[in-house]
């Protein structure tokens, strides 16, 4: 299992039976494949569908049925399609239980910056601003650092996607919850010390009294 699969598998444990879940492009998309059969999860895709099925077989792709990255998908038998206004009504209206997305930066106030690096990369926010504001729980799934640069900060330096919206961060080093007091480390990767995690985290970590080892 590589680092990204490790993160995705841990995030999958957060999804509860009956949840409506939106997965971002990239690493978050991998979460779906780690959901165990005992859970009935309804995946939402912001381009206008609910009920993701297994990945289509090569040669059997239906290009009228795609995810928010424009990639062909399949629908579960209870799947349903709708327009973008309905889709974002679902998102902003609090009908999505969990959104999982990647990020460039997250800070101890739960601020998130993941849509622009001014002057370098301007992809646009897509549906991310609506998702992080509207979903009941926001999970950031990302590698702990990027090319040695820290991503979990005291304060984001890039333009915000939203303020005070992140609830949880899952990386290859640990699971962190955003609390009013700061970032609480609740789980730590096997064979990793708290000092090692803190060393690559700009924000001061609060260590849970009940710190567990990530069981992935």
């Amino acid at each position, binding site marked *: 299992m590589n680092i990204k699969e490790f993160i995705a598998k841990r995030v999958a444990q957060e999804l509860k039976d009956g949840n409506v879940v939106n997965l971002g492009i990239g690493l978050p998309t991998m979460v779906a494949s780690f959901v165990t059969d005992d859970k009935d999860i309804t995946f939402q895709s912001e381009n206008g569908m609910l009920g993701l099925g297994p990945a289509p077989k090569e040669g059997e792709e239906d290009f009228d049925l795609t995810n928010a990255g424009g990639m062909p998908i399949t629908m579960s038998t209870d799947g349903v399609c709708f327009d*973008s206004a309905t889709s974002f009504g679902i998102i902003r209206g609090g009908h999505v239980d969990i959104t999982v997305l990647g990020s460039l930066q997250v800070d101890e106030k739960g601020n998130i910056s993941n849509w622009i690096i001014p002057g370098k990369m301007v*992809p646009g*926010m897509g*549906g991310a*601003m609506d998702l992080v504001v509207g979903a009941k729980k926001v999970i950031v799934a990302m590698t702990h650092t990027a090319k040695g640069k820290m991503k979990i900060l005291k304060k984001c330096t890039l333009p915000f996607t*939203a303020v005070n919206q992140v609830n949880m961060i899952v990386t290859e080093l640990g699971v962190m919850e955003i609390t009013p007091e700061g970032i609480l480390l609740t789980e730590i990767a096997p064979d990793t010390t708290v000092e090692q995690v803190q060393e690559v985290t700009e924000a001061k970590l609060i260590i849970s009294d009940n710190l567990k080892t990530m069981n992935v």
Partner: protein
Amino acid sequence: MKKIIDKSEFISKLKNGMSIMVGGFMVVGTPENLIEEIVKSDIKDLTIICNDAGLPNKGVGKLISAGKVKKLIASHIGLNPEAGKRMSEGTMEVELVPQGTLVEQIRSGGAGLGGFLTPTGLGTIVQEGKEIIEVEGEKFLLEKPLKADIALLLGHKVDEKGNTIYSKTTRNFNPMMATACEIVIVEAREVVSIGDLNPDNIVTPHIFVDYIVKGDK
């Protein structure tokens, strides 16, 4: 009223400098035949409103690559490097709007609303220059309606009167755009007789559709 027109008649409805809403999400649900006709024409200086910038050789990306777009209003341009290049060169103006806000602006434009209040974008650069309104202790941004001269849509089955149904996730922005433009043109994969569609399944009622152009099945 005869709504079915051919491709040359379609081009005669367009003028330089017009604002055009184009249906589709990452080119899924975009009327490629109508786009291709514009690429072949002399029409230019367009303001395009679309979820995204398409791909360099597909969807609204073809209009961008052909240098026909003066301004793009979209939520995402990341999968079309040509759009990013033209934005940084300054040859195309780009206004980025959160996706849920963009579609709701279009819905408001078509529904006679003066705008709407959304929590999306609060505390970000999206907020700049916008009014913040507090309702029962919660803050919202005032977002205004969006309309355009022309809507270009992709219908899966369209009857001769203009009643339209869409296929799966090709629906996306199409139904909202049908309500928010002066002239609405649907590229129909299949044109069927009036009465052939189940009224319960029709998504866009015929009164919104001005013209139908036959596309590919």
